[in-house]
């Protein structure tokens, strides 16, 4: 059965790009959110298997959202979408419960490899 993904990013551009990564794979995009608050809301509604989480977002950043999601569901699989120069934030996100991260610019095959490794 395909895994359901929640894409969290404040940029439509990035959401589209990530959506396309999962297109035609064993991952199915269940929903999108444009900020941390919306992410938590959508997470509660959709109970996705995987969350791709941007870090810098309005209303609530990705680290806070990850922390809350991982408190809601301790086993939640959250993968951070970081940009270069955000290493210390990624580390903070890992401490907050993120399982792995991808770095923009990313390649589809890399992203898929990373997320598949999280569902052995």
């Amino acid at each position, binding site marked *: 059965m395909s895994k359901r993904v929640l894409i969290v990013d*404040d940029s*439509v551009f*990035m959401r589209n790009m990530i959506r396309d990564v999962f297109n035609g794979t064993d991952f199915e995009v269940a929903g999108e959110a444009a900020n941390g608050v919306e992410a938590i809301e959508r997470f509660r509604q959709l109970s996705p298997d995987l969350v791709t989480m941007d870090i810098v977002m309005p*209303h609530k950043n990705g680290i806070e959202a990850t922390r809350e999601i991982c408190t809601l569901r301790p086993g939640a699989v959250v993968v951070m979408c970081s940009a*270069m120069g955000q*290493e*210390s934030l990624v580390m903070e996100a890992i*401490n907050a419960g993120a399982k*792995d991260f991808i770095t923009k610019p990313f390649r589809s095959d890399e992203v898929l490899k990373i997320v598949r490794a999280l569902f052995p």
Partner: protein
Amino acid sequence: MDTSKYRALFVSEAAENLRLFEKDILELERSPTNRDAIDRAFREIHSIKGMSASMGFEPIVDIAHKMEDLMDQFRRAVRFDPGVADLLTNCIDTLGAMIQTIEQGGKIEATAVAHALVDALTQAADLSRVRIAAAAVSASDATTTKEFRAEVPSHKDAVKETSSLGVSESSRQIPAPAPDDDSTTFRVEVRLRSGCAAPAARAFLIQHRLAGLGEITDLSPSLESLRAGQFRGLLTAEISTERTQHEIESAVRGIHDVEIAVVSPAPVPVTAPASATASATATATASAPAAAPVSAPTPALAQTPVSPTPDRSIRVRTEILDRLLDAVGELLIAQGRLRELARRTQSLPFEEAADRLDVVSRDINDQVRALRMVPLSTLFDRLPRVVRDVARRREKQVEIQVAGADIEVDRSIVDAIDSPLLHVVRNAVDHGVEAAPARRAAQKSPEGCLSIDAHRLRDQVLITVSDDGAGIDPNVIRSVARARGIVPDERLEKMDDEEIIYLVCMPGFSTAATVTDTSGRGVGMDIVRASVEAIGGSLEIVSRVGLGTTIRLRLPLTVATIRVLLVRAAGETFAIPLGSVGASLLVPVTEIERNRGNAFVRHGGGLLPVVNLARILGLDVQSAATPETPASTYLLLIERETAPIGVAVDEILRQEEVVVKPLGSLLGRIDGLSGATILGTGRPTFILDVPKLSRYA
């Protein structure tokens, strides 16, 4: 990855973020401690960086990355440095130009300018770091100032460290089972791929996963080094665990970007150095932040208030909307034809069906037009920056107030008045507002005031650009007009001050004593007026010497369709925009007076000059005229800037809402024709610009 299909989305979103970023920087220049603006600006430039990296637009990434870094410094300090505003606005221009190049399908390159910007940004960020560190130190206990000052600037990310990463958190979250007798200590050596994007973060993730499997008793590089981004590709750890060697191996090998992972039993310690090392590491970790200035005030990512309803919108390319509007225009034309047919057949069901279709098509038309509406902020948001730049260059102080930016108008109106409005605003700063000494001499406050205000009046929008500057002196205009022979002297004599001011809109008129690079050349007021009139708008100028100038642009909300009056002249049907017709009169032929070849009627207490539409169009009046001479004639009262004029037509048919079709390049050059349309009967008709035509009378 094929990124070409993301190009359009990239351009629109990056340009939007850049526009917002500029707005926030201008805001911060005024109020440097506006925390929300700092946060927004940071996020906006961060987004641009991320998107550009994904598209492989390296020259943008280089600049945006440095801009982000600089904004990050301000975020930590909760204070923007207005001293870098010029640098940032230069960056905005460069990025804007790059995005535009991409939009036009071009390739961007890292130019010398781009390199210079990157260098300047790096310097600015370094300077800010030192300043922030110094500020943090001076804010802390004065007695310890010396020691801190020596330490802090030397460590690039000292402030970042303390503010964003709580070490206690990491130790709390890692389930670290206490080593007991069943546990073994393994040495884990991991080498990352050389192309790994974020090696320190990757190494951090590896140690985090290891920590979930046991207790890390030794780590190289240390956690602090990793957090500071120091990592050279090889991570070594000793882990005390109950798991097997194989379990550890497969856990590490499954991690992305791991090239080699070797797990081997650790050499058995002679005494108990392992735990000593561990506690030493722990101490170092815990004490490092404490030594740095803990008073750093901002958390790494400040939270902004929750917005209850995020915007639900999609982006649509403008060309698609243009095509949709065209299609709806065609639909309305076809619909008009159908109605005409229905009327002729006099079949009630047919007419009813046509009426129903009429209602639906009009509804579609309204919806499509609503889709094309954009807020005036797309124009207005740039103005503070323009005013600031011009004012600075001309060494003037100008305060700008903008109101009504949320009023929505058709995209094509925004496009059409973009440069005219810019010109009017630049003019106001350049020639209107005086420099501070002159203002003081005139007993005004040294800072000039420029207000840009939009109001909606039914189906029009009124944009008012008003300054409190020196005003336009009619005597100066008069003498320039005389010197340049812009209007004949005898006409000049008759013009009052209000009319005289409008001469600035005549081609070739410029009173600027010197040519400046802002508004002394390029488009003049004549082009401004022409552009405004081309979309069915009008321009008004009110000026008082010493008090200032107000320029009003009266614009339609949309140019897609206009209401016209259909008239007949010399057997032909013509459309005249209703906006230019003040009234229509039926005048007995006997009341038309003739004086030396000119015709007049008495109207409203004065003499109204009368011209014949067929005659000014150069049509054959005689052959088309009705056999018997009519007893009265229709006059359209056409409003002009100077004085109204009566235009005689053979017949007034009806009013109609028509879709304006632009003329081709050949017909478009004919003065007095503003477009064409197709009537309900299927016949094409010219839309006349009567005020312009009447000059040929």
